[in-house]
C-alpha cells in the first residue's frame, strides 16, 4: 500500500507512515562476531593487513606501535591454534583484535567493526570508519612511548650471593665498592604495567647502580635466569654510564677496556684498572678517551673472542689505535678465573699485557 496516495489528512498520513516503518525487526543492528570474521577471512591475512612490519611466522620485526629500534616482535601460532603477537621488548602480547584495538586506540567491539568494514564482511550494514582516524591515533601513539623505570628493594648480602660471586673470586666488599646490590625485589614499571621480580636463592637478583647528574639508574642482572628476556634489564641509564669509571685509580700505566662490570671487578682483583661500556657495540666517546689518556699511559681493549667482540675490537683499534688481546681458552676473564683460578689468571693476563 502506498500511503502517499491515501486520501486523508496530512496528520493521519504521517501517523500511518510512522506505523508502517516501525516494528520491523529485519534490519535491527547486529554486532559482528569473531566467528563471522574468521569464516570469511584467514587470521594470517588479518595480521598481514594490520601488522605492517610482519612478514613471516616467528621472524622478528620492529613494532609499529612505538619507535622500536630493534626487531623485538614476533607472531607465531600458540596452543589453541590461533596466532599471537609477542613484543619481547615490552612483554606485551596480542591476539589480532587486541592488536587492532591497540593500534587504532579503539575498543574491542570497534576493532571488530573496523575489520568487518575493511574486509567488507557485512556488506548489508556497512560501518563507516573515518579513514583519517586510524592514522591520527597511530601518530599520537608513536609519540608516546612509555619509558621503563626500575626500583629496587635491596638487602644485605647473604650466603647465596657469596657462593655465586666467590666462583669468580669476587669478594662481597668489592661488590659494595662497585655499587652492586643484592635485591630482595625489583619493580619494573612500563606505562601502567608493573612487573615484580623476587630474589630466590636459585635465581638471585642484582642491581648495578649508576649515578650521573644526581640521577640514579639501575641495570638489573639475574645471572641464573633461564628466560633471556629477563637476564638483563635496563632503565633510565645511558651510554654515558661507564662501568668501573668511579672506581678507577687516579692514574696508572694500563687501563683495560672490557665488556662487563663483572670483568672490571675481575681485573681489579689483578690490580689492573678496567672500565666497560654498556655493551660491546657502544661507541667510545673521544672526549672520555682524551681524559683517560691523561691519567693512564695506555688503553688496551679486551672484548670477547666471538664475532661481535672481534668486530668491535677491530673497530676501536682502527678508530683509536688501541692495542687489544683476547682471553685464552675461555670467553672472558671471569670465566677464566672460575675455571682456572686467580693465580693462573694473573700469569695469563701479565703475559698478555706485558708480553
Amino acid at each position, binding site marked *: 500500500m502506498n500511503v502517499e496516495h491515501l486520501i486523508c489528512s496530512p496528520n493521519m498520513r504521517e501517523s500511518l507512515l510512522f506505523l508502517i516503518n516501525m516494528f520491523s525487526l529485519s534490519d535491527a543492528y547486529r554486532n559482528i562476531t569473531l566467528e563471522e570474521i574468521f569464516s570469511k577471512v584467514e587470521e594470517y591475512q588479518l595480521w598481514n593487513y594490520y601488522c605492517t612490519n610482519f612478514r613471516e611466522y616467528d621472524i622478528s620485526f620492529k613494532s609499529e606501535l612505538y619507535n622500536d629500534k630493534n626487531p623485538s616482535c614476533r607472531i607465531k601460532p600458540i596452543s589453541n591454534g590461533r596466532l599471537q603477537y609477542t613484543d619481547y621488548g615490552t612483554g606485551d602480547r596480542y591476539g589480532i583484535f587486541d592488536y587492532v584495538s591497540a593500534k587504532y586506540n579503539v575498543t574491542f567491539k570497534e576493532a571488530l567493526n573496523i575489520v568487518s568494514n575493511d574486509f567488507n564482511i557485512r556488506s548489508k550494514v556497512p560501518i563507516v570508519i573515518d579513514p583519517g582516524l586510524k592514522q591520527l591515533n597511530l601518530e599520537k601513539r608513536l609519540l608516546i612511548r612509555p619509558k621503563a623505570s626500575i626500583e629496587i628493594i*635491596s638487602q*644485605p648480602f*647473604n*650466603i647465596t650471593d*657469596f657462593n655465586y660471586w*666467590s666462583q669468580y673470586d669476587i669478594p*662481597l666488599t668489592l661488590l*659494595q665498592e662497585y655499587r652492586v646490590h643484592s635485591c630482595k625485589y625489583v619493580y619494573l614499571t612500563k606505562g601502567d604495567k608493573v612487573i615484580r621480580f623476587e630474589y630466590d636463592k636459585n635465581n638471585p637478583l642484582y642491581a648495578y647502580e649508576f649515578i650521573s647528574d644526581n640521577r640514579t639508574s639501575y641495570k638489573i642482572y639475574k645471572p641464573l635466569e633461564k628466560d633471556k628476556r629477563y637476564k638483563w634489564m635496563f632503565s633510565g641509564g645511558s651510554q654515558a654510564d661507564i662501568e668501573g669509571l668511579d672506581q678507577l685509580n687516579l692514574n696508572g700505566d694500563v687501563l683495560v677496556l672490557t665488556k662487563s662490570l663483572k670483568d672490571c671487578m675481575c681485573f681489579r682483583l689483578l690490580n689492573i684498572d678496567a672500565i666497560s661500556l654498556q655493551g660491546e657495540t657502544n661507541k667510545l666517546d673521544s672526549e672520555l678517551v682524551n681524559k683517560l689518556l691523561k691519567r693512564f699511559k695506555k688503553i688496551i681493549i679486551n672484548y670477547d673472542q666471538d664475532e661481535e667482540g672481534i668486530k668491535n675490537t677491530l673497530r676501536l683499534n682502527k678508530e683509536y689505535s688501541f692495542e687489544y688481546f683476547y682471553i685464552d681458552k675461555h670467553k672472558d676473564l671471569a670465566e677464566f678465573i672460575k675455571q682456572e683460578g686467580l693465580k693462573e689468571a694473573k700469569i695469563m693476563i701479565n703475559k698478555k699485557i706485558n708480553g
Partner: protein
Amino acid sequence: MSFNLKSAPEKAQNTGKQYVSPGIYDNTKVVEVVLLETSKNKVPYMEIHTSGPNGEIGKSGKMFLSTKVGTNEDGSPKKMSAWEMSSGNILDFIQAAYNNNREQAETLFGEVSSNQQVVDKTAALLVGKVVRAKFKGEEGADGRVWPSIDKVESMSVTPGTLRYDATRDIKKYRPQSNTAEAVNADITTGAKDGSDLPF
C-alpha cells in the same frame, strides 16, 4: 588415590631446623646478617646468623644499634651506648674472620651512617667467612637450651683461648617469683567444679 596412616613411621620424624648445641665449634660460617626489631617498642638490633659444618644453625645475641647513652633505673647515665657494646662484638667477628688486629678491623669497617648501612657493611665483610665460635646456652621454660654466640676467634690460631664449661655457660631457667605467685593465684581462684575451663 587413597590415604591411610599405615605407612606412617613409628615415631614422627623431626623435619625442623637443627640448632647448634652450646660448645666450641670450628668452621662456623657466617651466612646472613639481619636487621630486626624487638616486638615491644620496635627497637632495632642486628643479628649474625651462622651455619655449622653440618648445617647446624647458630646466631649471635641481639646487637642493639642505638648510639644514645641511655639511663639506668635510678636515672644515672649508663656507661656506654648500645652501639659501643655491639661495635665491640662486630670488631671481634671481623678480627676472627680476617685474622687481623683491632686497628685493621676498624679500617675494614670504615664509617657508615645508618642502621641499614651497619648491617650491609657487616654482611659484606662477614658473610661466607669462617670462624671458631663458642656458643653459650640459655634454658627455656620447656627445658630446651637456646644457643647464642658468646665469643669468636680466628681459625688460623691454635685452639685454646676459648673455654667452654657447661655449668657456667648454660644459664638455667629460673621462673620469676611474681610469675609463680600469679600462677598460684590463678589456681586458687579457679572454679572448683572446673566450669571455667575452656573445654
